[in-house]
């Protein structure tokens, strides 16, 4: 009984995207695919405890979902368009065209992350159609009312249908740009889990980071030669590995230099390091790394040090220099300044940070970084003011707790 229930849960995690994707290919309609997949899983919940778990749960679910979809199409098409029905009911496309690039799930991901959809819609649709999260779960994760999230997803599906967003993997020439859009969606999901916004939210959403990692693993399995996919997976793993040490018992964010490194997840670090080495080998062979690969490498340097004092800051700075050339965003420049502080002292770093003010005045991390540098320079009054500013702008409860303590130490 419990075995059957566990089997359904596992199948949901492992097979949902495959079932939805196969049905979307066959019926060309996300609504039909999603509803039939949900019905098939509901049937499994009823039947597996009594009949036993089928030897191939994925195939069972796909067959059941296909039957449900055909029933539905028959019901809705009672009179009109027999021909269309016949076309849907008789699948003449060869099942599962071989070759990784033709995978149904990959097409589904590219459809959900299509650039013609708003970013919030891409995130929601990917979590629903590919991740199998319920609308309620997605709404809770992003602090949106369930009805609003339902509307967002419904509108996105309607646009896919009406505007005819194609269900296919982009052509080779468009692939890199489109993959980077998919990775951006996954990184957004991950970051929201890693540093959740809003005073009502849990400061860390493990479910979202786990989902982002799972989906990135799936993309890597589908596109193993894309360096940025590997880079993003490595980056997520190395950040996730530090999660056990990131939060104090009192619910306060613990910054990197205060973390108990013994609490880091050694298995995730080992896997992340292995992936970074794989990309370093590719870079040595002349493949220029993208931003996720460089960010992963920076995190690999951090996680290689047993103690904060062993950190190879010059290597971190060199990687940031590489990153700045690729992405001249002020946020990267801000993070680079943190490494500068370790190598050249807080005064040099502060000058670099202050130059970013016109662009980052509304960003809490800018003020938090400034506050820390001013504190190290013994400029208590100014540091306090900077902490106050950071606290005004910070949205994460654990971060707020940390910043408040730091500020109050300055009394």
């Amino acid at each position: 009984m419990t075995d059957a229930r566990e089997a359904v849960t596992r199948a949901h995690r492992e097979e949902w995207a495959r079932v939805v994707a196969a049905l979307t290919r066959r019926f060309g309609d996300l609504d039909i695919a999603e509803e039939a997949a949900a019905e098939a899983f509901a049937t499994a919940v009823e039947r597996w405890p009594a009949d036993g778990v089928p030897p191939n749960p994925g195939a069972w679910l796909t067959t059941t979902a296909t039957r449900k979809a055909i029933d539905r199409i028959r019901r809705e098409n009672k009179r009109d368009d027999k021909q269309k029905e016949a076309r849907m009911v008789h699948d003449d496309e060869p099942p599962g065209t071989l070759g990784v690039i033709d995978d149904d799930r990959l097409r589904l991901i590219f459809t959900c992350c299509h650039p013609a959809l708003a970013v919030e819609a891409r995130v929601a649709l990917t979590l629903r159609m590919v991740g199998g999260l319920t609308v309620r779960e997605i709404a809770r994760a992003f602090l949106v009312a369930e009805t609003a999230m339902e509307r967002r997803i419904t509108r996105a599906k309607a646009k896919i249908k009406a505007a005819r967003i194609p269900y296919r993997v982009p052509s080779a020439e468009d692939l890199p740009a489109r993959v980077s859009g998919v990775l951006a969606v996954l990184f957004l999901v991950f970051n929201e889990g890693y540093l959740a916004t809003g005073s009502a939210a849990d400061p860390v959403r493990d479910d979202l980071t786990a989902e982002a990692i799972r989906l990135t693993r799936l993309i890597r399995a589908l596109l193993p030669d894309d360096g940025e996919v590997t880079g993003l997976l490595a980056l997520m793993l190395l950040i996730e590995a530090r999660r056990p040490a990131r939060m104090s018992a009192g619910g306060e964010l613990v910054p990197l230099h205060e973390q108990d490194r013994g609490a880091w997840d050694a298995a995730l670090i080992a896997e992340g390091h292995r992936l970074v080495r794989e990309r370093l080998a590719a870079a040595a062979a002349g493949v220029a790394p993208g931003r996720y690969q460089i960010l992963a490498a920076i995190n690999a340097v951090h996680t290689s040090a047993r103690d904060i004092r062993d950190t190879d800051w010059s290597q971190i700075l060199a990687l940031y220099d590489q990153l700045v050339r690729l992405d001249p965003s002020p946020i990267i420049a801000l993070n680079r300044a943190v490494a500068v502080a370790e190598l050249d002292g807080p005064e040099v770093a502060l000058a670099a940070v202050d130059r970013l003010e016109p662009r980052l005045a509304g960003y809490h991390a800018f003020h938090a970084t400034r506050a820390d540098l001013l504190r190290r320079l013994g400029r208590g009054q100014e540091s306090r003011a900077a902490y106050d500013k950071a606290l005004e702008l910070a949205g994460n409860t654990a971060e707020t707790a940390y910043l408040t303590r730091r500020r109050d130490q300055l009394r």
Partner: protein
Amino acid sequence: MQYLVSVIDDKENPGRTDRQPAISEFNERLIAEGHWVFAGGLADTESATVVDNRGEQAVFSDGPFVESKEYLAGVWIWEVPDLDVALKLATEASKVCDRKIEVRPFR
């Protein structure tokens, strides 16, 4: 699948006025590739008249139905298999026209 492709100009920041030869060339290509259904540039919004005959008698009002700094400067109708093809062409069209382009499917 047909799409209405709108060329959007901006009264405060208008696009270049020397685009006609490039647009003609682009149209030739659309025709050759089988995408061209219809195209036309529109006269100034000032030349528009809105007719409302839903009440007792028809009311004519001078000017476009919506006043804004952005306005419809011309339209195409394209025949393409899906949105990706339309977006690819629209990306080129925006360069060719030096204006923003809206792509909207027919029902």
